[in-house]
């Protein structure tokens, strides 16, 4: 298996507004004496005129803009990966197709498996490329998720006290092809672990439910199981030695720390000092962006990957191990190689600089958004969006490169560039 495949180009979009997580915890009166251990700082908050489509398009646009017309015509499939869908039938990919002006000879669909969706999308795309049925064909894979969990009712905020600070919003766009400039996947090197469990779910429009303890347990079981399956498949692989860097699905940093500790104890009976040092070196860089946008669900493991490539100081090819977990549950551990070119190309996206441009919401503004009056709920037939709901957040001097939701007419969402 020598045919190259992987991520050719990649971008992360973290929305137009964020909230300081410590300020939120203080405001909620959460007893978090060991707050630092959770490794959270900021979270992106979707404004009412931002939805899974705007996040996805805004993440993908810079990738498409950087392509030649000839390259764009080779995008033959658009896979949106989400648990924040806006319609049971029509996929988000159809909106991406319109607003990214993609070729008409294209497969469009959406896939779901909680936070595992992005890894599923990537693997489906990679296998399409490897199949050789359309040599040179490219796939646009976009993860896009937003959390509006408090919309359900007033009690939801209380019930979800400890997940509210970690729930974020964000999209990751990736072009998958046979020219993997960002991450060359180790084709055939992967491990899965899956079983049915009711840990967290989205049982109805705009509602989330779950059991944080059970979800953590399932995550830990899957980390051990998926890594174990990878080691079974890949001769000579070793969790401690084979991967210079690691990127895990990151609900919040503390959970990744727990899973890493579990693996190091289970596989090597490693001592606390060694575990802490290894975490700092191999997982520290992966938390760089997650702690700024919060849990981005399907995109979380790729937000971690972007953080690693941008901040780990990669000056020679390194093998990166990636672990994706999605409630319900399914998980995968897989790997790829990134190098100096990856860092140079991803750096060109200016991901961190874009995060810096976000508007910082006050608690009062955030609470107003939480009330949900201005949000377009699932199934809305007609609506006009108030673009001045948070005046400071509106990109008044925009260059026409940012997509926002303008109105809904007969269930059809209409967007504008600002």
């Amino acid at each position, binding site marked *: 298996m020598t045919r190259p495949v992987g991520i050719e180009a990649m971008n992360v979009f973290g929305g137009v507004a964020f909230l300081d997580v410590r300020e939120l915890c203080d405001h909620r009166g959460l007893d978090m004496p060991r707050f630092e251990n959770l490794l959270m700082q900021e979270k992106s908050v979707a404004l009412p005129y931002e939805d899974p489509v705007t996040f996805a398009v805004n993440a993908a646009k810079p990738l498409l803009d950087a392509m030649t017309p000839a390259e764009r015509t080779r995008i033959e499939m658009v896979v949106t990966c989400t648990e924040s869908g806006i319609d049971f039938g029509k996929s988000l990919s159809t909106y991406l197709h319109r607003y990214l002006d993609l070729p008409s000879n294209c497969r469009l669909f959406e896939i779901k498996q909680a936070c595992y969706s992005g890894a599923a999308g990537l693997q489906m795309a990679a296998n399409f490329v490897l199949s050789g049925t359309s040599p040179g064909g490219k796939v646009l894979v976009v993860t896009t998720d937003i959390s509006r969990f408090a919309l359900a009712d007033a009690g939801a905020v209380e019930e979800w006290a400890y997940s509210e600070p970690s729930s974020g919003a964000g999209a990751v766009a990736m072009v998958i092809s046979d020219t993997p400039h960002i991450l060359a996947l180790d084709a055939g090197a992967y491990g899965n672990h899956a079983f049915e469990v009711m840990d967290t779910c989205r049982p109805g429009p705009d509602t989330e439910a779950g059991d944080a303890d059970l979800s953590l347990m*399932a995550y*830990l*079981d899957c980390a051990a199981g998926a890594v174990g399956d990878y080691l079974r498949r890949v001769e000579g692989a070793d969790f401690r030695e084979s991967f210079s860097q690691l990127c895990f699905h990151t609900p919040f940093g503390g959970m990744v720390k727990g899973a890493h500790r579990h693996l190091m104890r289970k596989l090597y009976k490693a001592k606390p000092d060694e575990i802490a040092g290894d975490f700092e070196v191999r997982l520290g860089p992966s938390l760089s962006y997650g702690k700024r946008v919060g849990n981005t669900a399907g995109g979380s493991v790729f937000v971690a990957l972007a953080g690693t490539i941008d901040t780990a100081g990669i000056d020679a090819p390194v093998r990166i191990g990636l672990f994706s977990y999605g409630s319900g549950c399914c998980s995968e551990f897989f790997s790829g190689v990134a190098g100096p070119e990856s860092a140079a190309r991803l750096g060109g996206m200016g991901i961190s600089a874009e995060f810096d441009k976000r508007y910082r919401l006050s608690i009062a503004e955030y609470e107003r958004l939480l009330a949900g009056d201005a949000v377009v709920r699932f199934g809305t037939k007609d609506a006009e969006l108030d673009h001045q709901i948070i005046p400071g957040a509106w990109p008044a001097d925009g260059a026409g490169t940012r997509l926002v939701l303008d109105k809904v007419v007969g269930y059809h969402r209409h967007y504008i560039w600002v």
Partner: protein
Amino acid sequence: MDSDQIVDIIIGEIRETVPELADRPIGRGDSMADLGVDSIERSEIILATLEAVGLKVPMVQLHGPRNIGELADLIDAKKSG
């Protein structure tokens, strides 16, 4: 090994994981959450206890107990079963 001995192991792991609880009386009826042990720490305590008693089961099978005594009973049952 019986359930009471497992309770002792769990309490020992709690004190090890959360040093702030070193001097606090802890018994069968206490729940780790009420003691202020967070979810990550709870999982570590359970994993360490499984290691100490030599039991290999998926973590999700140990979900449900409402206090330390119930957790010990469940581990004891899995061990015997």
